[in-house]
């Protein structure tokens, strides 16, 4: 104790939020290292999505602190937090449906966010190649000139992940990236996550246990707004408290 932790990256301390008396998150503390892929699981209403909302500024905390790379994020405006390097994928895929895949990526590529700078922005040509590589990374190279409204549900999810990569945020928050996906699509999403591991710090909120086992190093289990357990998939699934509230008696292996 008392040591300076070299890998200090994202530290959440005693974070609480209160919606008119309903405590969605209470005294949540998490410590996530650089390049780590952390899975956040828990039953419905455990406050997983709210925790992500708090980190990215969509919801303002009642108390507690969120320190990211030494910077306090709590109570900052969303766009300021985004500029600090935090990217968020929403539960319901949120992309620009009236723009093409390429245009979507172009918007997300935001080295310069100023209004005037973007009025006279040059060099969009030079960026084109990078965007095409990103589209390839998530397997959308054939769809790049298509309007995003023509994409399938899975493709929309991947596009949103690609948008976060274009944004080049170091910390990526994924809210149920495999929701509504087929087994094949889930596998592809897991591949994408595994390839990002190490380069980005990722927090994934998921229900799909197979997916969590596939990608997660450390799993944090939330229950009623606070942390219940933390550990590897095996540790968590053998934890009797976790079995009781969430996984049921069969455990993580068969869920």
């Amino acid at each position, binding site marked *: 104790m008392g040591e300076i932790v070299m890998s200090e990256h994202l530290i959440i301390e005693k974070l609480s939020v209160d919606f008119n008396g309903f405590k969605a998150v209470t005294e949540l503390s998490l410590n996530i290292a650089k390049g780590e892929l952390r899975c956040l699981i828990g039953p419905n209403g455990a406050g997983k999505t709210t925790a992500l909302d708090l980190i990215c500024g969509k919801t303002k905390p009642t108390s507690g602190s969120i320190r990211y790379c030494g910077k306090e994020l709590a109570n900052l405006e969303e*766009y300021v937090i985004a500029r600090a390097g935090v990217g968020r994928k929403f539960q319901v895929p949120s992309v620009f449906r009236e723009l093409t895949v390429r245009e979507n990526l172009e918007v997300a590529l935001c080295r310069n966010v100023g*209004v005037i700078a973007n009025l006279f922005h040059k060099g969009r040509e030079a960026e084109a190649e990078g965007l095409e590589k990103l589209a390839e990374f998530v397997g959308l190279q054939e769809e790049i000139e298509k309007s995003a409204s023509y994409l399938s549900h899975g493709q929309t999810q991947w596009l949103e992940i690609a948008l976060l990569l274009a944004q080049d945020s170091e910390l990526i928050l994924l809210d149920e990236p495999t929701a509504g996906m087929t087994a094949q699509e889930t596998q592809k999403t897991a591949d994408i996550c595994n390839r990002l591991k190490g380069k980005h710090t990722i927090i994934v909120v998921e229900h799909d246990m197979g997916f969590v086992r596939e990608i997660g190093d450390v799993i944090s289990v939330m229950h009623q707004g606070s942390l219940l357990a933390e550990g590897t998939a095996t540790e968590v699934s053998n934890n009797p408290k976790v079995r009781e509230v969430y996984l049921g008696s069969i455990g993580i292996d068969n869920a």
Partner: protein
Amino acid sequence: MKQKKIFGLSRRTAIQILVYGGACAALFALPLFVGNDFLLNRYSRYLVLGMVAMALSLSWGHAGILNLGQGLSFGLGSYCMAMALKLRTVPVHTGSDGLPDFMVWNNVEHLPWFWQPFHSMTFTLLAGIFIPVLLAAFIGWFMFKGRVTGVFVAIITLATLVVANLLIIDQQPFTGGFNGITDLAQFKMFGIEFDAYSKSTYYLVAACLTICLFSCLALTKSKAGLILQAIRDEEDRVRFFGYDVAAYKSLAFCVSAAVAGIAGMLYTIVMEFASPTFLGVPLSLSIVIWCAVGGRKSLLGATIGAIVVVGMQGALSESALFLNTWTLIMGAVFVLVVLFLPNGLAGLVEIFQRRIAKKDG
């Protein structure tokens, strides 16, 4: 898949520039075929209204800000020009020291301070643009910082318009009240006198429309324009990429106000008066209808929409055949367009393009 490029522009943009250029060239060629000055004046009027519709297309179609008070910027521009031209009328029509006639009737003895700067035409031209812009920036800042969206933006802009309209009517000694500002001098610039019933005014309007159309097109084609369209689609998503959404929306709102202000100044020159009806609710609602008919997502579409609707209105209301049923016909056209062409007349172009693309491959 690689994009096809023509002079460094995507094919779509290149075609768009050609179409816009062609439309503007047609505007400039029109006086060669129309010798009647009365008709030219009427066409100038249509073009000015087309310009206001284009301004609304920028904020509504491209940034999703439904401004029901577009007439505010338009009217303010119009009054700026009217004040300047009123001060330039022949002294016989005015009171002592060139005091405007309506002020004499209202027992005003000295020219009020806010009328003084309008002796300068440079100031007038700047005021006609920047008064609407500053007001838009002020209202926009409050609305967009406060995350007011959708129908509430429409209500706030409409309410602001009504307030401005009432103020102008109420302050009769300084604004001419219900009568507006009439009996104006002719606008002079670069040694040319712009008679409302002449080719010179028509060309002035056409030139301003062309410049504004291409400037706005450049804006929508810039990265900022792309971000605005993204904001129209998913405002929150854009915010989480680190863009200050309020600043971008304010930009669109202010540029739209500037174009409407310029159109307002031209309207005074063309109509030879300024009236509180320019800031009336009916006009502002009409602008929305023109925009919807022409296609709110296309600058040129909205412009043409205004010209077509106002032109039809003129033709139908003057025809002995239709008498008062013309309003009914206009209503029917509007309903049909909204039902079958959600992207307006400009949407027709896209439908044809898709047909051709299907045949090709």
